[in-house]
């Protein structure tokens, strides 16, 4: 169990010192809590010895007051040092996570990792931050004060010391068995919880299908079963765990009673004085509080391991290497005829199976290249490699003669705009959503971009024009309108390469023409890489690459390819 505490400490980074300092203040606070008892003991022994006088009374009273005040001060200090540090540790960790996520390949986010990221941010970190950081120093204090108590008992009488040591040993055994039960069950409970969540999500998301296919009975039963299972697992946990908490308290009671009995025996046989007897009675009930509380608090920390595992797993995902420091400005001195994009023998695999094999082609500045082929053939993958959604397995991709891995991600992104079917707008004003394209753009430039993207008119009809907030709780836009706003963003960005999923233009029928005009505006004078679905739209492309079964099988312009009687000419016939 100390391992968990150690692991937590390792995550505290630069606040480690602060937390360690809080151990001391927490210990001092604990000492101050015991001080009135100690003073009480003095007081009684003075009375019993008949040595009490007025001055001593005043001093003792003042000392009690001082210890209470000091206790408050030390408590405040440890809270400031440690709880605050706990929040700061996680503030830092969240920033680090943000930084890490920024550097992950885009592919990481599409592989169903979104749930993991949000549970780490929303559940795991919050749990540790709120439940664990605040008790770290207390736990350490418990261990230290239990040690001191035991030593004190030895000082008083060796037999009392030995007995307390035995009782502490009993605590350790019971406590660790309790924690083992709690750890084992927390895994089982967690699993039951996860499968319940999945079933609930399936039910909620699929409710339309569930109802229209009359599966309500069957599905409800599955859901009920899952709830019952989760309930059963939770009760199982309590049933298994309950006796151990009882046992812990029993040890506490029995231990206290045993010490009292031994004291009484020693007192009766004259081995210890009456003063010691009184003192013992005072301290008796505090004797094993520390260790009991230690195990009581520890139980909360058992879940921490699983939380830390998940946090560390997200941190362990491999970042995209962003070591390149070259910028395109340095290298853009190449002639007007130079190839802007070059794929040089590129292979790629998501897992083990190659999805692209030895793809080579080049696109000159200002040209339009189209990738066509059956769905699943690899044309989207080729395009996403250019934006470094993933890195190539072998071969290389050059932009302006520079390997894209040797350029910083920032300047690569400045160089490329992407227009995809799925659009994401931030919960912000229309204006800010577009200005993302180029944050330093003047207001006129933003407006100009919206005119080109055919969205100026509908923006002006929104309740507050450009300052209307979109998204949840704000104005809702149709799919086509969102699409045009995202195109305005790209127009404003004005990067020299545009990657376009042509299907974008065919999503929303009545907006179709407006989107098409916006795209044509964006594509003027750019180097274009188009993922094409309908051949008609890219008939005039300078270069057409037919991608099928992980390779480029045909290449040329429309007329050349039509003459070849290959896959392209076949597709043209089908789509005519």
């Amino acid at each position, binding site marked *: 169990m100390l391992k968990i505490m150690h692991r937590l400490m390792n995550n505290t980074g630069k606040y480690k010192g602060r937390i360690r300092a809080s151990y001391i203040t927490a210990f001092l606070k604990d000492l101050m809590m015991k001080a009135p008892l100690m003073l*009480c003991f003095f007081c009684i022994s003075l009375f019993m010895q008949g040595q009490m006088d007025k001055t001593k009374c005043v001093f003792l009273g003042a000392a009690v007051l001082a210890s209470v005040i000091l206790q408050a001060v030390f408590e405040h200090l440890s809270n400031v040092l440690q709880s605050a540090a706990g929040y700061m540790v996680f503030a830092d960790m969240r920033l680090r996570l943000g930084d890490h996520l920024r550097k992950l390949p885009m592919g990481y986010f599409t*592989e*169903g990792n979104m749930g993991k990221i949000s549970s780490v941010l929303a559940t795991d970190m919050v749990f540790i931050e709120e439940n664990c950081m605040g008790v770290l120093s207390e736990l350490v204090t418990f261990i230290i004060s239990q040690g001191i108590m035991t030593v004190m008992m030895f000082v008083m009488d060796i037999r009392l010391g030995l007995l307390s040591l035995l009782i502490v040993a009993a605590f350790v055994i019971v406590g660790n068995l309790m924690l083992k039960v709690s750890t084992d069950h927390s895994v089982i409970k967690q699993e039951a919880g996860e499968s319940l969540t*999945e079933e609930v999500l*399936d039910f909620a*998301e*699929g409710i*339309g*299908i569930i*109802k*229209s*296919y*009359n*599966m*309500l009975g069957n599905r409800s039963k599955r859901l009920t079963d899952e709830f019952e299972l989760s309930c059963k697992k939770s009760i199982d946990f309590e049933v298994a765990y309950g006796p151990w908490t009882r046992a812990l308290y029993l040890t506490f009671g029995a231990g206290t009673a045993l010490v009292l009995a031994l004291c009484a025996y020693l007192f009766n046989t004259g081995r210890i004085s009456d003063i010691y007897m009184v003192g013992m*009675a*005072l301290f008796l*009930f505090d004797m094993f509080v520390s260790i009991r509380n230690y195990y009581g608090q520890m139980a909360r920390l058992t879940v921490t391991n699983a939380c830390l595992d998940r946090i560390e797993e997200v941190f362990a995902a491999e970042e995209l290497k962003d070591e390149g420091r070259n910028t395109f400005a340095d290298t853009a001195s190449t002639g007007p005829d130079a190839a802007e994009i070059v794929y040089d023998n590129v292979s790629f695999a998501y897992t083990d199976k190659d999805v692209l094999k030895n793809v080579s082609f080049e696109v000159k500045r200002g040209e*339009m290249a*189209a990738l066509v*082929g*059956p*769905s*699943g053939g690899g044309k989207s993958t080729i395009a996403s490699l250019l934006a470094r959604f993933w890195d190539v397995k072998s071969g290389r991709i050059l932009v302006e003669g520079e390997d894209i891995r040797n350029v910083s991600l920032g300047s690569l992104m400045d160089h490329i705009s992407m227009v995809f079917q799925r659009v994401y707008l931030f919960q912000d004003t229309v204006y800010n959503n577009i200005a993302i394209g180029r944050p330093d753009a003047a207001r006129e430039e933003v407006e100009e971009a919206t005119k080109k993207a055919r969205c100026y008119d509908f923006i002006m009809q929104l309740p507050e024009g450009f300052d209307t907030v979109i998204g949840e709780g704000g104005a809702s836009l*149709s*799919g*086509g309108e969102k699409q045009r706003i995202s195109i305005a963003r790209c127009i404003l960005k004005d990067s020299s390469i545009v990657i*376009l999923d*042509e*299907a974008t*233009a*065919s*999503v*929303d*029928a*009545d*907006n*179709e*023409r407006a989107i*098409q005009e916006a*795209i*044509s505006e964006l*594509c*003027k004078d750019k180097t*274009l890489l*188009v993922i*094409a*679905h*309908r051949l*008609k*739209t*890219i*008939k*005039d*492309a300078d270069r057409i690459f037919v991608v099928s079964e992980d390779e480029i099988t045909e290449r040329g312009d429309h007329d050349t390819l039509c003459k070849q009687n290959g896959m392209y000419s076949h*597709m043209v016939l*089908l*789509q005519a």
Partner: protein
Amino acid sequence: MIRWCLYFACRSRSGRLLKALNFAGKFPQLDYKIAELEKMMDHPPLKEGTSPFKGADHDVEFKNVHFGYEDTEVLHGVSLSLKQGTTTALVGESGSGKSTLAKLLVHYYDIDSGNITIGGQDITDMSLKALNDQVAFVSQEQFLFNTSLYENILIGKPAATKEEVLTAAERAQCNEFLERLPDGIKTQAADGGKQLSGGERQRISLARAILKNAPIIVLDEATAFMDPENEEKMNAALNEIVKDKTVLVIAHRLSTIKNADKICVMKEGQCIAADNHDGLMKTCPEYKKLWDASVSASTWKVRE
């Protein structure tokens, strides 16, 4: 002795009070959560009858249907009849209410006034099960359950034989990608989700509807264009399942529904005209405008 007892008593008393105070912070949270729960529980359930389907045929009739989401009415008295064995298309700009009207037939919502009947029987009179047996809705939604693709299709008709499921998959043009998957039709949807495109997932939904073989079909036509590469295959599949059925198509592109028996033009929550293509081209300027836009969009090129 008495003083000690008092001392300990005080300690434990104040301890309990402090413990109780610890929970004080939770009360506003609890309050909020209970309020949320109550809000959800207060939501009125759908009106649902108990009768089986006893309609004379599968003609569908919308009579003066008014409907609104919360406070804003989006359909202002729509009347429309669909004859068994014919195809009716709903066209109009986005926001005109065409999708809403279609969803009302599958009883996603209760209407505010008017009525919807199948073969003369009001849909609120029949049980949801009876209604669902009559209608298949192929929506734009691409949701698959977290089981195998086979089971996802089987939902359409749980008693179906393996051959029936495979035939449905074939008719929905699924074979081409099922062959590509290592576990074929046994692939888990969760794993397959990563490997399947939106259009492919929709073809699984379509296979499910084919297997169900309901007499009334409500179809969101955008479904067919998720994968433009497979457009003609999808059209073939659709043509096959709509044979002899009462079909309602929510149309986004006009070229595909040109041959529909009846085209209903929606505008601002009303049906402003209903006729076939040729008739509407002559009499309905709104339709002509939509058609022209559609024609010009279909000749667009990324760059001339």
